[in-house]
């Protein structure tokens, strides 16, 4: 039996939530629901966490934050999207700054819909996620050292892919090509007169206004 299911530690991140779901997440820790009786701890540290709890939709500003927290968590890990905004973007879906649900950025394992999601539903979602966590643990490479090796192998494979893409040209030739491109870019900038530049800038501004 795997012990990952007996001590799920959580990191909670508020994407662009209205705070409704956040309050419900914290309500899970209160004496009324007492999530700690399942060994659930709200760690606040991605390196200690097994479960990534995201509330609210992901917006353009925090895409990198969500990705970074996810990447800092050691395997096995799962993502639980809490609330309708985290699952699909909710009523903010059409907003100009909203990317969408959490699954547009990182893989999500459990969706807990609701506005706001009730504490019972959140605890239920986490407990459902434990099965996924156990499955992920079972599929993990046997020793943790080999896990990092596997990651290195993956990086090497990606390097290989790049080499295949430029097959037929050596690294030096590629460097020369890139240098040539840079020179031509630099030259092309010189073609602009100052008046052209101004015209371009104002055009950009107009475009921006229209978009807003």
């Amino acid at each position, binding site marked *: 039996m795997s012990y990952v299911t007996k001590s799920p530690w959580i990191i909670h991140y508020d994407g662009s939530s209205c705070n409704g779901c956040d309050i419900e997440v914290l309500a899970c820790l209160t004496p009324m629901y007492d999530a700690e009786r399942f060994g659930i701890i709200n760690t606040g540290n991605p390196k200690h966490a097994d479960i990534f709890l995201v509330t609210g939709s992901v917006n353009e500003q925090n895409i990198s934050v969500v990705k970074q927290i996810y990447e800092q968590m050691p395997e096995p890990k799962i993502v639980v999207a809490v609330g309708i905004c985290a699952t699909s973007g909710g009523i903010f879906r059409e907003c100009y700054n909203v990317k969408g649900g959490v699954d547009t950025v990182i893989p999500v394992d459990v969706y807990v819909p609701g506005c706001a999601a009730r504490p019972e539903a959140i605890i239920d979602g986490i407990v459902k996620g434990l099965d996924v966590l156990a499955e992920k643990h079972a599929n993990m490479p046997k020793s943790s*050292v080999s*896990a990092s090796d596997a990651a290195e192998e993956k990086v090497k494979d990606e390097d290989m892919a790049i080499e295949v893409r430029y097959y037929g040209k050596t690294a030096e030739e590629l460097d020369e090509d890139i240098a040539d491109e840079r020179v031509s870019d630099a030259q092309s900038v010189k073609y602009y007169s100052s008046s052209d530049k101004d015209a371009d800038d104002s055009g950009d501004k107009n475009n921006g206004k229209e978009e807003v």
Partner: protein
Amino acid sequence: MEFDFTATAALSALAYLVIGPFVGGLLAGVDRKITAKMQGRYGPPILQPFYDVRKLLEKEAVTVNKGQDFYVMSCLIFMIITGVLFFAGENLLLVIFTLTTATIFLVIAAYSSNSPYAQIGAERELLQIMSYEPMVLLMAVGLYMVNHSFYVKDIIHSEAFSLFPLGGIFVGYLFILTVKFRKSPFDLSMSHHAHQELVKGVTTEFSGRTLAALEVSHWYENVFLLGFLFLFFANGTWYMAVVGVVACLLAYFVEILIDNAYARMKWQFTLKSAWFMTITFGGVNLMLLYFFKMFGIL
């Protein structure tokens, strides 16, 4: 220094080595349960700390640098050596400085990560060491003055009942025990409770196996610290040994109560109050002891 390793000493050291972490883990589990009850919650199972460590061992090993693991393992090993020396009845001063070495390895491990949270945690840990270390040293001096030996085995079997002549030092030790157990209001560098301004302080950059090692070293440390408390009650008789164990458990309960009753204080308060207690209770106690000895009362 002679290492007189008798069968009893070897046995008790071995007992600490094997049973120590189980007792420490169980104490941590009881701590969490009692804390939950104090807050009106049901709380996790008593064995939850063991589940946590088993899980951490199953997690992927992610380290910031290779040195970090070495430092944390050194912390664990020196913590074990501290307790083994103590329970084998060796020199109290040696035990105290080995304990400091273990803690310093933790500080270095935290510093090595280059994470701002861990580094501020490490700095606070250093301040904590500065707060409690004078009291620990005074305690060794006090126990020497009463029992005429720095050796734990002599103190344990000594006829002198240390608690009465060292009452002030006992109170001072109870005070710094809050710092050592990482309990509020002195859990500056790292707390077991979630959501704090330093993420997880010194342990922020540790995960998986490294964090498990640190947790186990914490269990070892707690058992050793309670053993230290036991020295005040030991006078070679079995009934005082029972009283000593009960007093240790009672002290642990009081620490849990303090943990739940107080919010975290600033490091200035920690340092000032710990030194105040050291000077007023520890220092005055030693002074009185000296005068009593001079006039032949004790």
